[in-house]
C-alpha cells in the first residue's frame, strides 16, 4: 500500500523529512520558550508570591499596610482542613528606607514566619551567608545581596529601617544582619529585607493583622480548586483569594505575547511545509491515475480508494512526526538538564535580562503536550491535504485513467 507514496518518487521521503524538520523545530522552540517563561514565573511565583495568596479585599488595589487583614491562629488552622494546602505563610509587607547611616536605599520589608516561609519559598536555601532565624523571636534581618551591596552592609552590621507604620504610626528600628539572601530574580535581589513576623509587627506597630498570606499547595496545577475552596471558606466581603496569574498579570501577558510571536513563526513554518507535502500529494495523485483506474476496475469503491489514500498520507505525516520527536527528544532533554546559560553571551545580555527581571538562564521544558500538539497539527494538516486526492478520485473515470 505504501509503495504508492514511496515508490515512484522520492517525494514521499522528502515530505517525511520536511515534516520531521518542522516537528523537530517546533518542539524545540516551544520547549525553550515555555521552559524559559516557566523558569522565570517560578522564580517570581514560587520564590515569593506563592501560587495562591489571601489578602484583605482592598489590599490588592491599594497595597498599603493600612489595608492589612485580620489574621489569627484560628483562620490559619482552618485552612489546614484542605489536604491540598501544605502550609500557610502570613506576611506583613511594606516599603521602607534601609540605611547603614551613610547609605540609604528603598527596600521591601517582609515580616514572615520562619518555618512556613522556608517550606513555601525555600527562603533558607537562598542564604549565601550567615544563618536562618532561630525562631519567631529572632530579631535579626535577612537581607538580599543586592540591597547589602548597594548600601555596603556586611553580615553582623546594623541595619536601620525607617518607614511609616500602621495607621500613621512612626516606624523605625535597628536590626542586626543575620544572613544574606540571593534570589534568582534580580528584582527581588535588589529590594528584599526579611524580618520574622513578630519583629515586623513590632516595627510596623501592628497587632493581629497581616498584609497577605501565601498558600503553599502540593501541586501547582491544583491552584484553581484551592482558590475556589478558599473562596468558600473565607468571608469574601473582607478577604480576597488571588491566584498567581492575577498577581503578576503583566508577566502573564508578556508570556502570551511571546507565545503569540512563536506561534506565528510556527504557523508559517507549517504552512510552508504543507505546500511541499501538497506538491508530493499532487504528483502522487497524477502518477497513480492508472493504478487508481485499475483498482476501481477490479471493484474498489471510490470511498475505499479515498480511505486508502488518506491512510497513506496520514501515515506519511505521522512517520514525519515520529522522526521529528525522536530527533528533538534528546535535545530537549539535554537542555532541560543543562539549561542555556546566556551569561556566555556577555555582560550586556545578562544586564538586559536583569533589567527585565529575568535570570539569564533558559532551561527547556520537557512536556508531553508540546510533542502531542505537533502530532495533532500534522494530523489535521495532512487530513486537509488528503482532500485533494479524494476530490480527484471522486471525478476519476476508470477507463480514461487507465488509458493515460
Amino acid at each position: 500500500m505504501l509503495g504508492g507514496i514511496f515508490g515512484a518518487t522520492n517525494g514521499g521521503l522528502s515530505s517525511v523529512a520536511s515534516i520531521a524538520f518542522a516537528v523537530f523545530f517546533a518542539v524545540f522552540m516551544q520547549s525553550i520558550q515555555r521552559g524559559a517563561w516557566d523558569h522565570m514565573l517560578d522564580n517570581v511565583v514560587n520564590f515569593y508570591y506563592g501560587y495562591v495568596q489571601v489578602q484583605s479585599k482592598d489590599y490588592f488595589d491599594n497595597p498599603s499596610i493600612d489595608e492589612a487583614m485580620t489574621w489569627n491562629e484560628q483562620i490559619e488552622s482552618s485552612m489546614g482542613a484542605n489536604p491540598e494546602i501544605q502550609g500557610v505563610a502570613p506576611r506583613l509587607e511594606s516599603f521602607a528606607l534601609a540605611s547603614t547611616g551613610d547609605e540609604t536605599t528603598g527596600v521591601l520589608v517582609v515580616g514572615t514566619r520562619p518555618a512556613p516561609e522556608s517550606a513555601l519559598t525555600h527562603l533558607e536555601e537562598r542564604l549565601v551567608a550567615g544563618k536562618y532565624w532561630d525562631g519567631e523571636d529572632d530579631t535579626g534581618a535577612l537581607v538580599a545581596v543586592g540591597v547589602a551591596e548597594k548600601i555596603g552592609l556586611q553580615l553582623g552590621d546594623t541595619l536601620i529601617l525607617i518607614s511609616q507604620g500602621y495607621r500613621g504610626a512612626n516606624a523605625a528600628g535597628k536590626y542586626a544582619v543575620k544572613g544574606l539572601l540571593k534570589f534568582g530574580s534580580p528584582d527581588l535581589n535588589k529590594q528584599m529585607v526579611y524580618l520574622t513576623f513578630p519583629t515586623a509587627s513590632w516595627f510596623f506597630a501592628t497587632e493581629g493583622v497581616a498584609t497577605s498570606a501565601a498558600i503553599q499547595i502540593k501541586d501547582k496545577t491544583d491552584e484553581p480548586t484551592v482558590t475556589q475552596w478558599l473562596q468558600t471558606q473565607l468571608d469574601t466581603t473582607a478577604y480576597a483569594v488571588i491566584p498567581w496569574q492575577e498577581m503578576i498579570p503583566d508577566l502573564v501577558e508578556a508570556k502570551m505575547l511571546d507565545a503569540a510571536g512563536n506561534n506565528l513563526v510556527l504557523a508559517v513554518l507549517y504552512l510552508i511545509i504543507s505546500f511541499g507535502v501538497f506538491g508530493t500529494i499532487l504528483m502522487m495523485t497524477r502518477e497513480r491515475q492508472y493504478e487508481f483506474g485499475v483498482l476501481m476496475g477490479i471493484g474498489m469503491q471510490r470511498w475505499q480508494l479515498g480511505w486508502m489514500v488518506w491512510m497513506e498520507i496520514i501515515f506519511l505525516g505521522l512517520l514525519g512526526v515520529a522522526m521529528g520527536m525522536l530527533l528533538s527528544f534528546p535535545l530537549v532533554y539535554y537542555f532541560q538538564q543543562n539549561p542555556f546559560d546566556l551569561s556566555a553571551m556577555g555582560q550586556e545580555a545578562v544586564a538586559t535580562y536583569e533589567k527585565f527581571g529575568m535570570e539569564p538562564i533558559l532551561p527547556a521544558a520537557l512536556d508531553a503536550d508540546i510533542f502531542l500538539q505537533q502530532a495533532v497539527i500534522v494530523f489535521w494538516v495532512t487530513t486537509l491535504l488528503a482532500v485533494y486526492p479524494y476530490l480527484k478520485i471522486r471525478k476519476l473515470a476508470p477507463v480514461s485513467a487507465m488509458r493515460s
Partner: protein
Amino acid sequence: MISTLAWRNIWRSPTRSWVIIGAIMLGIWALVFMLSFTVGMVQSYVDNSIENGIGHLQVHNADYRQEAKVQYYFSTDVLPLAQWKTDERLQGVAVRTLVQAMAGSSRATRGVVIKGVDPLGESQATPLSRQIVEGEYLDANKKNCLIISKTLAGKLKVKLRSKIVLTFQDLEGHITAGAFRIVGIFDTGNKAIDEGNVFVNRLDINALLGNSAMAHEVSFLLKDITTLPAMKAALTAQLPELAVEDYKEVAPDLQLYEGQIQTSANIFMVIIMLALLFGIINTMLMAVLERYRELGMLMAVGMNKARVFGMILIETLLLAMIALIPGLLLGWGTVAWLSTTGIDLSAFSGGLSQFGMSTVVYPKLQAALYLQFAMAVCLTAILGAIYPAWKAIRLKPVEAMRKI
C-alpha cells in the same frame, strides 16, 4: 536557448510549479513581515527609551555612572546652557538632579527616584509635559510642587493636591524630608518609568540636598540622530571633566536589541529557508525523475553534463525568481501599509508596558535586509537544485531511455 528551455520546462507542470512558487512567496512574505514586526518592536522600545528620558546623549559625573550616589554630582556652572540653547542640532536639553527616596502619603509608602528637573528643558527633551492626564505640568515659579504617575498615585492612594512627603539622604548623609504638593498626574505608558519616578523642580530638591547649583545628569534630545557622533564629540570637548555617553552606552541593552535584529533576521531566515529547501528539492527531484527519458535523449544527442546541471539549476533559480519578486513586493507593500496604520497590540498592553514598549507597533525594514532575503532565496534555490541536478547528470542515457 538553455534558459528558454528551462523557462518552458517550468510550465510543463504548472500546478506543481505554482505550489512551490506559492510556498516561496509565502516564505518571503512571512520573513519580511515577521522581521519588520521585530524591527518595529525594537524600534518602539529604543525610541520609547530615548524619548522617555534617556535621550540621545547623556552627561554625568564619571563616578555617578559607577555608582548612583547622590554625592557624585557636578556643578551646573560648568554647563554652557546658553550656547546649547542656540544650537540648531538640539531639540531639548534636560538637566536633572536624581535622588533615591521614600515617597510617603498619609496612607502608604513606596521607594521612588526623585527627578529634580527644569520644567522647560524637560518638556523639550521628553514628552512629559504632554503626558499630563490631570492637573498641570510643573511650574518653575511654584515652590514644592510635584507630579506623579497615575499608577503610583493609585498605589500611594493620593489625588491631585494631596501632599507627599519625600524622605532621603542629603549630601551630608543626613536623613532629610520635604513635603510636596501634587499639581499634576501623568501617564507615560511605560511601567518602569511610571512606577519608579516622581518629578519636582530641580531647585526645590537642590535646596533640600544642600547645593543649589548641582545636577547628576544632562540628557540631550537631538533633532536628527545622524548628528549624534558630531554632537558627542562637541560635548566631550566642552565638558572635559564629565562623562559623555550616547544612548547605547547609557543603556547597553538598547545596543544589544539593535544587534538582536540581525540575529533574529538570521534565525528566521534559516528556519524558513530550510523549510523551503525541502520543498524545492522535492519539486525539482520530481521534475527530474519525470523527465528521465527526455534527459537521457538530451545526453544521447550530445548535451554534456555541465549543461544538464546548468539547465536544472536555471530552472530552479527561475522558479525562485518568479516567487521572489512578487514575494518581496508583497512584503514591502504590507510593511508600507502597516508602517502607517500600525499593528494594535492593546490586547497585550500590560505585557508590553512591562517591557517599555508602546501598544501600537509600526513595522519597518531596512532595505539591506530585503537584499539579504533575496540572496538567501537564491542560495536556497541553488542548494535545492544540487541533488536533483546531480541525479540528472548521473543517469545513463541507454538506461534512462529504456525506463518506462
